[in-house]
């Protein structure tokens, strides 16, 4: 695959992913993943030491849909928004139609009272596949640089 072309497509995928969450259309967020996927939020320290647990651990798209349902209908959190900025992707490897990609990110959280602050930084470790002409995540491991999370992590990173 042509790297330049593919990088462009990965950039588009991440731009759409970010807009989906930041525009509060999280019902569409699970659609960025294939049905049998892995989405996990962890920390650089846990990741480096092979500690498997995540703040969020979903091994199916249905679990991501449940996450959205819980955020909409069950969980209590103050009104807030994210602004995702993703950096230049590094294409790490590819095999059998799956491409391994690392993308740095920064998420600013904007609270109800107007406070804007850096909420999380880190890198996405992705396994991207093409499904009927669309790039989708088979795996997205959100490796946060810091182990400290302010108050709660409600919306997806």
């Amino acid at each position, binding site marked *: 695959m042509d790297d330049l072309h593919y990088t462009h497509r990965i950039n588009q995928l991440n731009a759409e992913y970010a807009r989906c969450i930041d525009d509060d259309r999280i019902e569409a967020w699970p659609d960025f993943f294939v049905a049998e996927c892995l989405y996990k939020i962890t*920390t650089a320290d846990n990741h480096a030491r092979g500690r498997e647990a995540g703040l969020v*651990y979903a091994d199916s798209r*249905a679990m991501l849909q449940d996450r959205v*349902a819980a955020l909409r209908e069950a969980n209590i*959190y103050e009104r807030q928004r994210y602004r995702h900025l993703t950096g230049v992707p590094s294409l790490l490897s590819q095999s059998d139609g799956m491409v391994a990609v690392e993308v740095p990110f920064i998420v600013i959280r904007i609270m109800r009272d107007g406070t804007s602050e850096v909420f999380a930084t880190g890198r996405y470790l992705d396994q991207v596949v093409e499904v009927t002409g669309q790039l989708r995540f088979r795996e997205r491991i959100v490796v946060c640089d810091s182990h400290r999370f302010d*108050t*709660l*992590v409600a919306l997806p990173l």
Partner: protein
Amino acid sequence: MQHPSWPDTLTRVPYWVYQDAQTFANEQQRIFEGPVWNFLCLEEELPHAGDYRTTFVGRMPVIVVRDDDGEVYAFENRCVHRGALIALEDEGNARDFQCVYHAWTYDRQGQLKGVAFKEGVNGKGGMPKDFCMQAHGPRKLRVTTIFGLVFGSLSDEVPPIEEYIGDDVLAKMERVLRRPVHVLGRFTQALPNNWKMYAENVRDTYHASLLHLFFTKFGITRLDQAGGVVVSESGGNHATASIVERVVPRQEAYVGQGFRSQENEFKLRDPSILDTHEEFGDNIGLQILSVFPGFVLQQIRNCVAVRQVLPRAIAATDLNWTYLGFKDDSPEMRRVRLKQANLIGPAGYVSMEDGAVGGFVQRGIASAGALDSVIALGGDNAGSETFRATEASVRGFWKAYRKYMDF
């Protein structure tokens, strides 16, 4: 601040106690450095000689380390020379500890073993001849371990850990921690509130089914489920449990009262998150256990974690989560625990709200220092109950707190 007197009942707590700088300072001396046992770490985290972790006793930085004799030692992470931190990493392995500032060196038991240029240079300078290294050392903690948990105390008067926790709560601790544990992950949740609000929240069986809708909807716990609360004689330690099956017929208690938590039943598309393996042999599906001042052991189905509550400032608290499995877990069981971990921590379906609600209180009481909160559910006692529609264990916390603080 002039403190109004404390109301003469366990059912009222004045709000200044969450706001006052002098109280915050006194808590460090009277509670954290007083006759209590502070949770430090897990034995599992110090498997080999030289393995160490840095943590805190209240605000006091502490090094916990295993020495060649197999024992765990703990001492203040403060060089006796100029007060700098001795160890700068969260964890590691060390033959000894050397302060980076002027290279004073300590062994694994906190004894000062080396002072740079002690004899001077070219016969000039150096420490006074009568300087005694044995007489200088960071404050050392008494250390004790129980069920793989390491606790430390600055006090010579604190009773043995078993007696401190109390038999009833100890038995609840043992039922979870019978097997060697395995650390699955560590996360810190920064709470925007005084540490005592989280200590109360943990002991508050009242809020669980009302604030946490996820709990209620899926029948993980409800006040009308069988269960109860055990409070230690001191009041400071508690365990609350609920039985996983709905053995008590569903009461009308919730219906028609218009609670937010009763609205809009919804179903999980992937209910595997609630697949539960009966592993403790007693059908207890949820147990929350606390040891005064800042330790929590939690079992929600197969999701086991310890939490360490550390004050950082009057209205800032760190909640350190350590997610646990057991060494003998099958790969399938490991996966069950990883999925159920969605319930807990900063993004937990159940726990996320606990991170926020303390901040709601801290902000709500901004100008209410002269007023009191009301903690009267289930009467004014602070003892064990066979039901959970009570705030007995919250009153227990205040009973212990007032004794330590002499309020």
